[in-house]
């Protein structure tokens, strides 16, 4: 039992290291992080009038996280499996004595690490609200934490989509579509429309499946176990699907 667990851990570590080095072997990770920071900055600054509101509050900054993750996380995850299938290296990977769930987790953790780095590099925003006035740093830390967890769930979607195709472009597009549905389900525009069509119960029900809804509760500064469980559960589901998609290939479907 112990040997089995260690074997899985070995696989996770080996795959995580390889994938992380793949992100940084080309300019991919650097470009990703730079564009993410730039877009997040522009949105927060221009669209949310960050400084004009004058409040020492990162609300306008966190507001954009789900919407940006919806595009950026599938972009980060798209190559994880599709490239492997396309280059034929999946054959090598599947011949190694490591557990498949370990490989799936290792790959996700690598993408998650890059996302975490991108998120960490937004620290100037945190500093600047503290300069503006006394800020609720506990609430901000909590929002950062939930943002990171949410990023993992978005990456889970992207990685699972990547396991379904040999084209990373297709993986990106399908990943964004699914991520959009999961995000927009909690958008007032959508919940409003659904409520007026099918009654308010339906609107609320749909919103319960939205990343937006669960992320917003965190921004109010309360750690809601429900939100945390939602993202963790969702990520687990994605990892399981991802594993099944890859496992399915062993049966000979390309």
């Amino acid at each position, binding site marked *: 039992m112990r040997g089995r667990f260690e074997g899985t851990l070995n696989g996770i570590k080996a795959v995580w290291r390889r994938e992380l080095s793949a992100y940084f072997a080309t300019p991919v990770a650097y470009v990703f992080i730079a564009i993410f920071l730039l877009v997040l900055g522009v949105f927060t600054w221009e669209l949310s009038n960050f400084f004009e509101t004058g409040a020492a509050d990162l609300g306008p900054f966190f507001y954009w996280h789900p919407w940006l993750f919806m595009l950026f996380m599938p972009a980060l995850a798209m190559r994880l499996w599709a490239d492997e299938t396309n280059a034929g290296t999946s054959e*090598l990977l599947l011949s190694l004595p490591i557990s498949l769930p370990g490989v799936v987790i290792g790959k996700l953790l690598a993408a998650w690490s890059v996302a975490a780095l991108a998120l960490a590099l937004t620290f100037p925003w945190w500093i600047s609200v503290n300069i503006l006035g006394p800020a609720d740093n506990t609430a901000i830390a909590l929002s950062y934490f939930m943002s990171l967890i949410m990023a993992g769930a978005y990456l889970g979607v992207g990685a699972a989509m990547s396991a379904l195709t040999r084209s990373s472009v297709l993986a990106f597009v399908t990943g964004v579509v699914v991520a959009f549905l999961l995000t927009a389900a909690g958008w007032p525009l959508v919940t409003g429309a659904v409520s007026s069509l099918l009654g308010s119960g339906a609107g609320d029900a749909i919103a319960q499946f939205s990343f937006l809804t669960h992320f917003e509760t965190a921004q109010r500064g309360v750690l809601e176990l429900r939100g945390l469980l939602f993202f963790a559960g969702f990520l687990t589901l994605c990892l399981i699907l991802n594993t099944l998609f890859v496992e399915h290939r062993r049966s000979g479907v390309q």
Partner: protein
Amino acid sequence: MLDLDALSKSFDGYRAVTDLSFELDKGEVLGFLGQNGAGKSTTMKMVAGVLEPDIGDARVLGQSIVSNRREAQRLIGYLPEGAPLYRDMTPLTFLRFLADAHGMDRIARKTAVDRVIADARIASVTGQPISTLSKGFRRRVGLAGAILHDPPVLLLDEPTDGLDPIQKRAVRALIARMAHNKAIIISTHTLEEVPAMCSRVIVIDHGRMVADKSPDDLAASASGGLEEAFITLVSEARGGGA
């Protein structure tokens, strides 16, 4: 050492491999021959645990690739057809990754990596991105990866494809050196290298075994030597006309 038991695989009703059984002992080097599409790679993928057989099993030192996959995979070194590699890595980081995946500790990893770099003669390119290597060097990096954990069973799918005559000879010498304590399966289309490299030949056609002989016996079975024997076998199996 390696025991194939009624291995079968179909793709959408097309029977790529049918009821393939044989045993391979330590010290044997098996030349695995057949036309394009005969089912060689499919067989090797099943033995390597990359593809699940529909029916049948393959056992390495008693470990089943179906019911005990990871244990069996530990005992196998596999070079997939075309030697796919992570192009963004260097041979050194690639080999280290494989060593980590095999659960080697740092010391074992260093020893193993140094050994296969020497064996596969890739010392001059270990720091170069794999994407910039020539085909021959890539093949050798793949080979180095397959023998990294010194497995008792080696599955090499067209290992000498794309190598120049000097490198072919080097690979043959390497295989000969390793042969005494391993069971090795080599698929190839270069019939000339079979007598030099293999102690046994299996020919398959349409996924079925049509011959299992020593290279000498196979060559003696037709007047034109190995090539004639191969062509005769394969066309006979199709009821004349290949």
